[in-house]
């Protein structure tokens, strides 16, 4: 493609190619940004290969295996109702076999077109046009058309509906069908992460009549290659290939999916895999990684992610309304030791600003250092020279969360800070997760750093659990949202990271590597950072 053709897809693409040619951007960042701007994955990989001289191929379908094999997975089977109300990725993994997103985020953290075959944005990123696949059909025989997408967007933007997409697409004013296979999204402010948000797990597209037809996933058609055949909450979900019409993506080797719920005890999952009752686990805990490494018949999967947890201060609640107290607490933390003790060193130390090294706009800052002298002097300055008693709330499961809080408590002790770790059942914690004066909250992976900053630290947004409000930060975030050029966005992000660090609103202990395990019969499985399953590319070996 020449520059003119590239510019016709998006005005920023020629510049992006130039950056790759000059070595100012990495192959991965180029692939991510170019596909985000509407370049097809094939063209993006082709350009990258030509410039770097390496042969890159887009993730391909599994070419081996027996057609028709069924994969048995150990994963929680939760109640299924409306994909846009999904609040756990386990739910969306079942939804995704039947209902599909417009864009899909791969195991390499790159977003690619899916039900939309391509898209383009206007220059200031306030209007995005999505071109839909013309060969996709619903399992009831209806054609997949723009009205389907518009109906979904309208529902997501209805606050009473209760979808988290309402917050996810806060800048989206609405969608309009240009023709049967073209939809335009109109935004109130620039947002470069629209395709990434469309790849998030609650953004699966359901049929335009979904809500008129009862609003239940179980009674409505899908565009995906599978359909539900049996389902029982907390027990089992069985899916078989759809039989009414061929799937738009072609042949699928996997004949069926059998998801078995083994409860919440990680040891039960592993026992099921070890005894051959299942082929794949949804997850294993960090404690189990060493055990799986010791089992020759099992395959261990690991991937670096933007999944993390933050010990965050509610900055308007005493004593955390005093920045000196927050800085003193942060000064006690040794992130390397924290990672080693609380998570078996299976990840990357955090830097207390919630932008991960795998995010494209990440800017490296000097690592926070443990400094007890500084902590003591700040505490004395804040009026706590004789010590400080505080409490942190966290959930009981998964265990890495309370473990991390316990290690933090030990690190605070030498500075005279007595931290009581209050471990709560998940339901109790999440009831008030944005209200706790000091709480530990897990955050899932998102492909772009600005996505998390927009969700968690912008003034007044529903998920702002720190109650942080900084007009300077908000203005810079607006600027980052509207900046396509990666270098320029990285420079803005550096300032954003610095502000969060300076204001000491969170302790972010580490970025978690995630793990799972399977037997050796599965082909094509890759551990995606948000644990999203991509069933169409899997197959099973005969033995």
């Amino acid at each position: 493609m020449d520059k003119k053709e590239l510019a016709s897809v998006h005005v920023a693409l020629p510049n992006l190619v130039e950056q790759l040619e000059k070595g100012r951007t990495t192959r991965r960042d180029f692939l991510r940004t170019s596909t985000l701007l509407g370049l097809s994955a094939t063209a993006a990989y082709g350009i990258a290969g030509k410039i770097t001289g390496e042969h890159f191929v887009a993730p391909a379908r599994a070419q081996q295996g027996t057609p028709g094999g069924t994969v048995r997975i150990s994963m929680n089977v939760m109640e299924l109702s409306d994909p846009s109300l999904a609040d756990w990725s386990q739910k969306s993994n079942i939804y995704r076999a039947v209902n599909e997103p417009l864009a899909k985020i791969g195991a390499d953290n790159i977003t690619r077109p899916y039900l939309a075959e391509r898209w383009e944005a206007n220059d200031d990123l306030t209007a995005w046009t999505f071109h839909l696949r013309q060969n996709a059909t619903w399992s009831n025989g209806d054609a997949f058309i723009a009205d389907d997408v518009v109906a979904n967007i309208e529902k997501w933007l209805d606050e009473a509906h209760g979808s988290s997409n309402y917050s996810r697409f806060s800048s989206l004013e609405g969608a309009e069908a240009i023709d049967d296979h073209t939809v335009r999204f109109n935004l109130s402010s620039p947002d470069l992460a629209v395709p990434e948000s469309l790849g998030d797990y609650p953004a699966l597209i359901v049929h335009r009549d979904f809500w008129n037809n009862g609003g239940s996933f179980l009674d409505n058609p899908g565009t995906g290659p599978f359909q539900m055949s049996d389902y029982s909450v907390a027990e089992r979900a069985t899916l078989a290939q759809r039989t009414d019409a061929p799937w738009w993506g072609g042949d699928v080797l996997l004949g069926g999916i059998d998801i078995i719920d083994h409860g919440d005890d990680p040891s039960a999952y592993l026992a099921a895999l070890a005894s051959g009752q299942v082929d794949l686990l949804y997850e294993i805990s960090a404690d189990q990684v060493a055990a799986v490494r010791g089992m020759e018949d099992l395959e261990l999967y690991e991937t670096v992610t933007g999944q993390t947890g933050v010990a965050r201060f509610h900055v308007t609640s005493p004593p955390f309304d005093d920045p000196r107290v927050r800085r003193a607490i942060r000064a006690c933390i040794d992130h390397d030791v924290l990672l080693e003790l609380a998570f078996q060193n299976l990840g990357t130390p955090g830097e207390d600003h919630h932008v991960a090294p795998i995010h494209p706009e990440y800017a490296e800052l000097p690592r926070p250092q443990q400094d007890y002298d500084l902590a003591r002097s700040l505490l004395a300055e804040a009026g706590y020279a004789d010590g400080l008693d505080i409490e942190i709330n966290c959930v009981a499961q998964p265990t890495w969360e309370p473990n991390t809080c316990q290690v933090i408590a030990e690190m605070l002790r030498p500075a005279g800070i007595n931290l009581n770790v209050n471990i709560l059942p998940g339901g109790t914690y999440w009831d008030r997760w944005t209200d706790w004066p000091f709480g530990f909250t897990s955050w899932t992976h998102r492909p772009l750093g600005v996505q998390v900053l927009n969700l968690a630290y912008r003034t007044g947004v529903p998920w702002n659990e720190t109650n942080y409000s900084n007009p300077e930060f908000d203005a810079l975030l607006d600027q980052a949202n509207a900046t396509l050029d990666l270098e320029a966005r990285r420079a803005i992000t550096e300032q954003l990271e610095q502000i969060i660090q300076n204001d000491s609103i969170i302790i972010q202990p580490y970025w978690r590597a995630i793990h799972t395990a399977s037997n050796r019969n599965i082909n094509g499985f890759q551990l995606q950072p948000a644990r999203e399953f991509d069933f169409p590319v899997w197959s099973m070996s005969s033995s």
Partner: protein
Amino acid sequence: MIVFLARRLVFMLLTMLAVSIILFAMLEVNVESIAVRVLGAYSTDTQREIWLEANGYLRPIYVRYIEWLGNFLVGDFGESTRFNTRVADILWPRLGNTGLLALFTFGIMIPISLTLGVFAGMREGSRTDRSITFLSVITTSVPEFASAVLLSFIFVFWLGLLPGTSGFTDGFSLREMILPVMVLIIYDFGYVARMTRASMAEVMQSPYIRTAVLKGLPYRRVVMRHALRNALIAPFTVIVLQINWLLSGVIVVEYFFAYKGFGALLLEAALNNDVDLIQACAMIAVIVAVGTQTIADIGYTYLNPRIRFT
């Protein structure tokens, strides 16, 4: 006897009523948590408010309690937010599964522990008595989670002989039943055996047994016809009360082996703040607890005619 039964029945009803009020007050005062459970942790305050209004949760708590009690009495336990279905649809099958587990456990454990207890108590202080007592103390001292891990390591991970979970996903499987039943038996048989031994030893010291022996009756006949019935009174009470333990006290075993039983259901309900399900499970547990207590009392009366109720 009739007065006694009537008293027990009234006591049962009052206990259940008191528990229902406490439960309801504890679980339904904070209606916000119910909305969070249904709409998800990341829902907004406005979304929760709309949902609570639409589902009648903003009405006074006593109105909601009376409505709930009326529904409970006719078998309508409400809707489970965790399972998105009627509580009754999930509760009865789970109760049945735990009943099956209890049946297997009792079916094997009771004969073993009674036999061992009687043998030990027949000759107090003998080598047999000391061996059985030692074994009982050791097995009872090992908590269920520890024996579950140990047995799982041996039979699942090391020898590869048994399945690691017991979910019966492909229908009932005797092989999947082995490990949970084994764990429960190991934990509980020692307790029943020691109670039986103590009771048997006490009876064997009684003057009427000594008289029977001195009269020249065969020892076997003395034990079978004279000692056994009296020696089983105390173990009977203990065994009946184990039903209560098997219903809600087997949470660890059901959780560890992913067994879809009542104990695991209660835990899941509690962890997920599933209010209607917690209420129903707790009420069933109370009914069983009070019911088994009553059965134990009646049985004790039948076995021991010296006890008279006025």
